[in-house]
Every structure is written in structure tokens, then in C-alpha cells.
């Protein structure tokens, strides 16, 4: 491939890009990793195995898993309705899917607290319970699976489905045997992004969960509390666990997205 830019410009451009990325993101993250092992492996281990840290990580991972499963089912369902169904106002509903991304997380938490908190107009109060963590995470991760599945569903040729139906397959069988296998890579890709987002979420949890240690304190809130109480090693150690969990999940996601691309070619 020939170059459209003179070499000096190339080198300058990528030099600037790599320096900027290093200064802004990589060096600070390296500081977290180094801080976590500042006192040796033992200190790291005892920091991530304190009862409160384990409880926070457990609550976060379980809530994130529940949220990912709900998203995989309902996100796919919503994508299906947005692609295959027709109803008035569909394009507005379609735009609103991105609202959790555009809305600041603290506002998201506040809106949920209004409807599902102590002053709920319908009498449903989940504030300060573990259910509130799941609720907040469902809100902020809504777009991922929907937006991953939608384009695949749009591209999917309906001829195969029609053929199966004309041969007597029921709607359920057609979905299970033809549609679902085509969507699976996209569902998993979206679910991976949702999981990575969920385990690190902070802003939407602050107001509605009450941040009660051992009960509703999520990992990110635990880290925040450690920073506030001047325990940087504890904060850094749990941060590294979260980082590793996110990276492992994103690696799996990358593997599936590559596999999906290979299918298309």
C-alpha cells in the first residue's frame, strides 16, 4: 500500500497520538497497577480479600451478571421489535435507546430514585436494597445489546425464515433455529460491553443504593470510600481486580466479534 502522506508527517502524527494516549491514560493507569503492589504481593492479596472488599466485588459481579442476562434477552427483544415491527412513534423510541448514554449517570440515578425510591408514586421502593443496584445497572447498560443486535437483524435476509415457515416450522422454531444463531455473536458482543460497563459503574449507584457496606456497596463505591479514607493501596488493589475482569471480558468479546466477522466473509 502506498503512502498518501510524507513519512515525516506520518511519524509526527503517530508520535503525537501515542504520547497523548500515554500521558492522559496509560501512565496514570500504570500508577494504579504499581500502587496496588507497592507493599508486595501479600499486601495486594490482603487488600482484595478484606471482608468488605470481597463483599463489594461479589455484589458487583452478581448484579452485573444478572444485568447482562436480562439485557441479552430484553435487548434482543427490543432490537427485534425496532427492526421487524411497525408502530407509530417507532423512530422516537429508537432514538431514546441512546438516552442512557447521553444522560449523565448522576441524573439517571436521581430519576430512578424518584420512581423507585421512598416517594415512589406507585409504591415500589427498592432504594438501599441490592435490587437498586440491578435497576441502576439495567438503566445505564440498556443501549449495548440493542445497538449490537439491530444492524445484524437489519441485514438478515428473511428468505430463509420464509422458507422454513412454508415448510411448516413454527414461529418459535424459526426463531430458535434460524434467527438466533445469526444473532448470537452480536448478542454476546453487546453483553460483553454491557458487563464491562456494569462492573465499573459509579454515578448512577451513588444516590439510590445508599452505599451500605456488606449490603449495597458496589466495587466502584468501595474504591471511592478507600480513596476518601486515605487507603490508596486498598483502592488500587480492588481497581486492578476490576480492570482485569473488564479486560478479560473484552478479550472474550473481541474473540467473538472476530468470529462473527469471519462468518460474514
Amino acid at each position, binding site marked *: 500500500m502506498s503512502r*498518501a502522506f510524507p513519512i515525516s508527517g506520518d511519524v509526527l502524527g503517530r508520535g503525537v497520538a501515542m504520547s497523548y494516549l500515554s500521558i492522559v491514560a496509560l501512565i496514570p493507569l500504570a500508577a494504579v497497577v504499581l500502587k496496588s503492589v507497592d507493599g508486595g504481593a501479600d499486601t495486594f492479596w490482603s487488600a482484595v480479600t478484606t471482608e468488605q472488599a470481597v463483599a463489594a466485588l461479589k455484589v458487583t459481579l452478581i448484579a452485573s451478571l444478572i444485568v447482562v442476562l436480562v439485557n441479552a434477552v430484553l435487548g434482543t427483544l427490543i432490537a427485534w421489535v425496532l427492526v421487524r415491527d411497525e408502530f407509530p412513534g417507532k423512530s422516537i423510541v429508537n*432514538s431514546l435507546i441512546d438516552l442512557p448514554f447521553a*444522560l449523565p449517570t448522576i441524573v439517571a440515578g*436521581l430519576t430512578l430514585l424518584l420512581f423507585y425510591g421512598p416517594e415512589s408514586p406507585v409504591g415500589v421502593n427498592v432504594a438501599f436494597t441490592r435490587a437498586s443496584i440491578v435497576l441502576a445497572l439495567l438503566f445505564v447498560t440498556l443501549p449495548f445489546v440493542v445497538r449490537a443486535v439491530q444492524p445484524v437483524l437489519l441485514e438478515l435476509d428473511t428468505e430463509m425464515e420464509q422458507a422454513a415457515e412454508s415448510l411448516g416450522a413454527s*414461529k418459535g422454531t424459526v426463531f430458535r433455529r434460524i434467527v438466533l444463531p445469526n444473532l448470537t455473536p452480536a448478542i454476546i458482543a453487546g453483553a460483553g460491553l454491557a458487563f464491562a460497563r456494569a*462492573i465499573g459503574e*459509579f*454515578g448512577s449507584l451513588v*444516590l439510590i443504593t445508599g452505599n451500605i457496606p456488606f449490603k449495597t456497596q458496589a466495587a466502584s463505591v468501595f474504591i471511592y470510600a478507600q480513596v476518601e479514607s486515605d487507603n490508596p493501596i486498598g483502592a*488500587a488493589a480492588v481497581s486492578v481486580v476490576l480492570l482485569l475482569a473488564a479486560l478479560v471480558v473484552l478479550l472474550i468479546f473481541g474473540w467473538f466479534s472476530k468470529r462473527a466477522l469471519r462468518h460474514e466473509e
Partner: protein
Amino acid sequence: MKSKYALRFVALGYLALLLGIPVALVFINAFQDGIGTAWNAVTTPEAQHAFWLTFIMVAVAVPLNTVFGVLCALAVVRQRFRGRALLNAMVDLPFAVSPVVVGLALLLVYGRRDGWIGPWLSEHGVQIIFSTPGMILATIFVSLPFVVREVIPVLREIGTEQEQAAATLGANGLQTFFRVTLPAIRWGVAYGVVLTIARALGEFGAVSVVSGKLSGRTETATLYVESRFQRFDETGAYAASVVLALLAFATLLAMNLIKPKEAQG
């Protein structure tokens, strides 16, 4: 046909309960004592300062991340060098990092007491943490990947033929970039900029850690929402939330206007 309506009912019902009704409630609560009260709540000196500070975050972070994003996308798509795959992977890192961890990372580098370069900077009269520069760094970090991610596919799509033609006709690197490449990727850049603005406006966790939350000094709009709510000034919290929600709706509108143009190229 019955199943079609059942699916539509579940999808729309879920979206209404998770998004629609809670967000509508914030508007209702903000205006329940009249528009005048809500207006007064968002025009207090503290509120004005908070929105001004948020504006500064956006005004600094977005242009820097846009220039970086275009340079980085060019390097990843148009250049061949060692570390290219690594650069491509590293750019996504901010998506996998909890906002609280971002704040902690900056604290460990720039903290005045025991950060890597914080004490040295402090001796020379530069304060990063608990001050605007630290909050800007946090905002840059969390909104880093958006322009890169939007521009990379567009660059791949347009190919290099036109750039090569321009080069053959004697255009230098900069001329080719500004007169051929940039016009071709402009809607991709614009879409990335909108996403970057939305993320920068709404950032809470990372900014919260490095800000020190000094009311009227280091309080952005999202931090203002939290502090008003914690001080039982609910009208103030809801009114500021409504402003942020309106900005979120403006973001959705901009996304909808730009997306079709991006698809047309």
C-alpha cells in the same frame, strides 16, 4: 399475529418503566413549584458556576480529543508500524476502566502529597488535584476513544484512491489531508464529537474523585446535582438535572441528524 403485539407490549413497557416514566418524573418534580422556582434554582451563583465549569471541561477536552482522535485513526488505518495493533487496542482502554479508577489514577500521579510528579509540580506552584486541571484531565480520559472509534471505520470505507490522486497531482501531505481526507470523514468526526461532548458533560465519578467537591469552586454540573440532593435542596437538584437532561435530548437529536449523513458519506 398475537405474539407480535405481545412482543411490542413487553419492549415498550420495559422501556417506559426503565426510561420514560422516571425521566418524565424529573421534569414534573422540577417544575412542581412553578417554572419561576426552577429557573431561580438553576441561576444561583453556585449553579451558574457549576455549569460554567462543565462548559470549560467540554471546551478543553473536546478539541484536544478530536485532534488526537483524527491523528490516531489515521495512524491506525493508513500507516504500518510496529505497535499499531497495540495502539488500536489501548485506545479502547478508557471504556473498560471505572470512572472512580480514572480519578484514583490521576490522584496517584498528580496528588500533592505522594503522587509521582504532584509534589514537584506543587513546589513550582502548579496544582492539578482539587483544581480545574485535574478535572479536565479526568474528563479527557473518559471521553478519549469516541472520535477514534467513529473515524476509523469511515477512513477504512473511503479508501486511499482519492488521496493518492491528490498526491500524484502534486498536493503535499497537509493539502491532501485538509482538502481530500478531512472533507470525506467530516460526518464521522462530527458524530464522534457529539459523543465526546455528551460524555464530557455527564462525567461524574472521575471528576468527583479529583475535584475535592469545593462548592462554587470545583463543582461541575453533575457534582452540583449530587451536592444539592445531599443537602436536601431537591428543587435545586431536579432543576439542574432537567438542564442536563435537555442537553442529553439535544445530543440524541444531533446524533439523529448526523447519522444518515455519515452513512451517505
